[in-house]
């Protein structure tokens, strides 16, 4: 496994990241530490390594904390390159959330209610990702109620089809739905586990449903 130091020392073909104010950087570091502490998350890389190459992390969706905790679990150099894709209706409500989403995580906010043909979420994500940034997406679309991993929506397939060279990294989030269940706003500090799996790609000619089922199995496989 690569240590964060190895990643930091790697010669950069690293692209420039939008410069952020020291306050936002400090807030980001503090928030990442707080999220790791509160969610008690242990991070596992299973047959996979942290890397600054352009990736799409796709995970099961159980809690509002998911994007934050995955983002916080990445080594700092990678975290700064990674943008969570989040729901606009939740993350643009209130000054604090909007500031966090825009300035601290640099999230890509997607309007779930008003999807236009020319501005499909997939196009927005790929445009915002550009040629260097990685994304965190939740292919189920919304948080599961039962804690089971639901069927994946087709967005992941279109991401993979339009940018077949990106690494698709499955991520499994365990127990975070108990830390902050749906409909609650105060967390309970239980222990959770974030597992990153080996990357996968869209095979040539692979059908949409086959690919989505395979991607879902890759997430479930990390559950053990």
């Amino acid at each position: 496994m690569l240590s964060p130091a190895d990643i930091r020392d790697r010669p950069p073909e690293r692209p420039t990241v939008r410069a952020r104010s020291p306050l936002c950087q400090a807030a980001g570091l503090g928030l990442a530490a707080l999220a790791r502490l509160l969610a008690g998350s242990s991070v596992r890389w299973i047959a996979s390594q942290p890397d600054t190459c352009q990736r799409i992390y796709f995970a099961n969706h159980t809690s509002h904390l998911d994007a934050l905790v995955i983002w916080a679990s990445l080594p700092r150099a990678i975290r700064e390159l990674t943008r969570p894709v989040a729901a606009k209706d939740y993350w643009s409500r209130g000054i604090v959330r909007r500031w966090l989403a825009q300035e601290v995580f640099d999230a890509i906010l997607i309007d779930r209610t008003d999807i236009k043909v020319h501005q499909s979420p997939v196009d927005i994500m790929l445009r915002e990702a550009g040629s260097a940034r990685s994304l965190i997406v939740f292919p189920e679309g919304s948080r599961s109620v039962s804690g089971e991993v639901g069927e994946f929506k087709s967005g992941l397939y279109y991401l993979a089809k339009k940018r077949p060279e990106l690494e698709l990294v499955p991520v499994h989030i365990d127990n975070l739905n108990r830390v902050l269940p749906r409909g609650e706003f105060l967390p309970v500090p239980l222990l959770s586990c974030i597992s990153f799996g080996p990357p996968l790609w869209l095979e040539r000619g692979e059908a949409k449903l086959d690919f989505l089922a395979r991607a879902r199995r890759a997430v479930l496989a990390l559950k053990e």
Partner: protein
Amino acid sequence: MTDNRTIALVAGVLALLTAATAVGQFLRRHPDRGLDPAAVGTFNSRLRGWWILCTVLAAAYWLGTTATVVLFGFVSFWALREFITLTPTRKGDHRALFWVFFAFTPLHYVLVGLDRYDVFSVFLPVYATLFVLARVAFAGDYKRFLERTAKIQAGLVVCVYCLSFAPALLQLQLPGSEGNSDGNFRLLFFLILLVQFADCMQYVWSRMLGQHLVAPTVSSNRTWEGLLGSATSTSLLAAALWWAAPPFQLWQATLAGFVVAVMGFAGGMTMSAIKRDRGVKDYGTLVVGHGGVLDRVDSMCFAAPVFYHITLLVTGIKP
């Protein structure tokens, strides 16, 4: 400030640990001695744990009573975290759990730190119980109501209430030590030493002579021989070290050693039963990368309150 008995104890522990470390390193470098390398590895990692424990204790002693209470507070918090993570809870328990973690646990340790035995001895077992019952009822989910509230209650009592009696030893007014807490720290160290020693001895005697398992369905390595051997050797150690534990006479220290060994064994059995029920081997593997705090303090949780009350009983000290 530091008195002779504290110096003797610290020197003795340092000498023992250094000698044991030297032996462990010698055995590691000479694998041809015919000893099982895995056993040597276990021995060395146990020793590392001891060094860490003693360093933390020394730091706590140096920082004083309040810091030690806070330290135990964090250990309780983490143990409770593991306990509740392992226990299935429902969404209806969420609000009650929030209060348990962020109000009852810290408040209990504040009461321990303020030396309010009259309040903290009933705060969790009575008031937290009532609160948890009512809060879960208010949440409107009645499914397996008693089972769920009992789990939260058990976690709170074992991980927080019982463990807090260890730092509460620091608050006792020991005879002949006005304003000096050296004796209290020796008493706490005495308890920790006995608990750890009893754990080791249980393992050693079970391995050497173990024939009759106490409950094969619960634990496949805890035997009656282990229990008896551990109780005997721990009593002997307590007798040998009675001079270090201020309020005790020889027979009282021996009795304390015996009871600590039996209670520690009971704590280990209890946690084994819970783990068996949940199908995990230890709390550490539950979430990869965490040490498993509850695995380390289970014996202590059971031994601490009994040791505390024995101290009160046999010496006639008022809490």
